[in-house]
């Protein structure tokens, strides 16, 4: 039986803090979101990443989903814009962040460390650059493609040792995992979020986007759907 006094001041504090960072997963600034579809990557000014971090992100996204081969790359589809906007809009605000944190918990018990996505990028980019400098003698963005891939692989497999580089609280693989998920989300989400520019990713894979009405098509089996995608803003490709 509990007669716990409800900690209203704590709740009020949390709510006040939350008000500065929108909880709702749709960015609350619709006006800006409407403008994201027209962004040209070379003219875009990041709102979360610093200039140096942005340089890293462009180079990393360009390897995570490269331009060569079938289908568009991450830069052609403005994926870094998506990531920048999402981090600014409060990605991660829905996570339960109270301590104590057991950073070495079994992976089957889920995310347990105490970094927000924003912190993961700040720390991860800094240490990834240190690793690149240490291992290849240059900043990440100046490496040849194969070496960039080697650095990304080292982050992914956790052979880049963030503890040795100065921060034992974050694993390289955790940072890589966050970045890769955000990259794929930006590639395949509706273009209103800033990525999947002109629905190029949807065109490449054959996904009709927000058409969402297939009463006649459900009975047509094993035939390629003939129409291109539409976006939530009503554009067609």
């Amino acid at each position, binding site marked *: 039986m509990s007669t716990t006094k409800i900690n209203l001041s704590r709740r009020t504090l949390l709510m006040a803090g939350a008000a500065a960072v929108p909880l709702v997963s749709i960015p609350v600034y619709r006006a800006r979101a409407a403008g994201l579809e027209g962004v040209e990557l070379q003219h875009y000014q990041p709102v979360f990443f610093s200039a140096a971090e942005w340089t890293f992100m462009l180079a990393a996204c360009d390897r*995570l989903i490269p331009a060569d081969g079938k289908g568009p790359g991450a830069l052609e589809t403005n994926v870094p814009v998506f990531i920048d906007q999402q981090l600014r809009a409060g990605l991660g605000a829905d996570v339960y962040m109270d301590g104590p944190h057991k950073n070495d918990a079994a992976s089957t018990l*889920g*995310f347990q460390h105490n970094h927000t996505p924003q912190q993961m990028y700040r720390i991860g980019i800094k240490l990834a650059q240190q690793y690149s400098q240490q291992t290849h003698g240059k900043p990440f963005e100046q490496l040849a493609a194969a070496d960039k891939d080697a650095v990304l692989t080292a982050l992914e497999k956790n052979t880049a040792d963030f503890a040795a580089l100065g921060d034992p609280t974050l694993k390289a693989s955790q940072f890589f995992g966050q970045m890769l998920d955000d*990259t794929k989300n930006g590639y395949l989400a509706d273009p209103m979020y800033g990525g999947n520019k002109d629905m190029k990713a949807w065109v490449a894979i054959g*996904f009709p986007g927000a058409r*969402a009405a*297939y*009463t006649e098509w*459900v009975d047509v089996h*094993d035939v390629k759907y003939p129409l291109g995608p539409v976006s939530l803003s009503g554009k067609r490709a």
Partner: protein
Amino acid sequence: MPNITNDDVDVVIVGLGWAGSIMAIELAQAGLKVRALERGPDRPPEDFAYPKPADQYAYAIRNKVFATPRDAALTVRYNDAETALPTRKWGAFAPGTGVGGSGLHWTGVLIRPTTTDIKLKTYADHAYKRGILDPDMRIKDFPFTWDEIEPFFDKFDKICGLSGNTGNLKGVIQPGGDPFEGPRSNPYPLPALHDTLNSSLFAETARKMGYHPFPNPSANVSQAWTNPYGAQLAPCNYCGYCSKYPCLNYSKASPQTTILDVVKRMPNFSYRANANVIRVDLHADKKTAKGVTYIDEQQREVFQPARIVILSSFQFANVRLMLLSGIGQPYNPITETGTVGRNYAFLSNGDATLFFKDKHFNPFATAGATGEMFNDISPGNFDGAALGFIGGAKIHSSQATGAPIGTALPKGTPGWGKGWKEGMVDWYGRSMKIGITTTCMSYRGHFLDLDPNYKDPWGQPLLRMTFDWRQNELKLQRYLRGLVLDIAKELKPDAMSETFLGLDSHWDITKYVSTHNVGGAIMGDSPRDSALNRYLQSWDVHNVFVPGGNAFPQNFQANPTAMIGAITLFAAEAIKQHYLKNPGPLVQV
């Protein structure tokens, strides 16, 4: 003491999802003054007009209409020797919030348990020799007969416009339906949804192999429907944005589409959104409740007095409220005393993904419940005892959504780079799944209680969940894997991948299973080992009723919503016919 006291009501309903909405309309139509308190936001249907829900990133990736772990986390541990850790992000399950609850965005498979499922203990005692089953298993019968509950399944089917093929009509097996289903008093209200390529391939093959497939029983309606309350649903247009999404077409049976439009017009019904109930307030003798206390939108503490309290805030939230409020005794797994928190169970799934480089599955053209399944492997219909386990599974090929984030790719496809990108181009829309959704037994050592270390934003302890897989469920998985792979091989895919549990698997809370958590405040015949009687009335506090999946003593393979609808309607009827005239315990022991 709360700062504000509301006007008196006859009934306060905590949580306005399926169970809360059913109670709301049934009791309001009986003339009672009813007020519902919903922790989350209001969710009027106009918020979900086309094209808004056609947005995978918002709804399925960022969980737009779900509760947040920040506000609603639990803690989890595998056994009572460990320290439980918070569910900082959702994984295996994800609770809803807001008006409509998870009923707003559920997949919409509306299927009844079988006659054996509701008397599983009786079946086990008869079919299993001593020593075969884990001595820690705590399975129980539901405290009603098929004939008593069937009219309430039937009523909920009609509320939802259930669409599918009748299998057993008054004891006569019908072609095209589930021959293993319990007898229905009436046929399905509406015909089945249309099959997609995956489900027709699966059904054809399964039938050839001797199984009895039928279309997934669906609460995404196949035709225009007017339900018993006068609410109307439109025929599903297979939009592909169903499971985790509010319906953009008024086709998915939800509290909004089937009940709330009607009950909101009644002057004796009112509701408050953004009202977080933090406790049920009991009278000094603890035998009755006087109402509930909630935190409103302005962060004020408000007391809502009421004659009857309905806890319908979802399975584990209901159990937590009972523990926080002192309703019943908390369960102790060592002494097996106390009933609140015992008999917690979950479920498992697994599947084979089949890749065909030349087929077009068009996965985006689908309803939530789309698929075909068979129940041949369910308790009582095959010799589980000879195999050394109790339980079974739906075996099905379903296709609840077709949006591209998370597309399955063949084994060996790189996780990023040119190989991943080209894998998406080559394989999106080229795969189907054959999956299992299993039963899950209850055990002495699987239970819910209050966490000693972690709190929610209101300063109250989180609910702690102690659960892991046991050998019974893992043996069941290995057996089912064999059956699924046999079917998959018949279809001759170009590539195949699989996920099934192994005999040494721990519960992986990072992988979504389903939000069919059950137990913790179970219904039963005796206050010794159940928290609620057959009318979902607390044995301890007679004006508190707790409808939800919490009432199940273990989990069957059918999705839980049909049963939750039926037992809630059954309880509402008992309140109307008996409790109002004579408030007190409805079952004497």
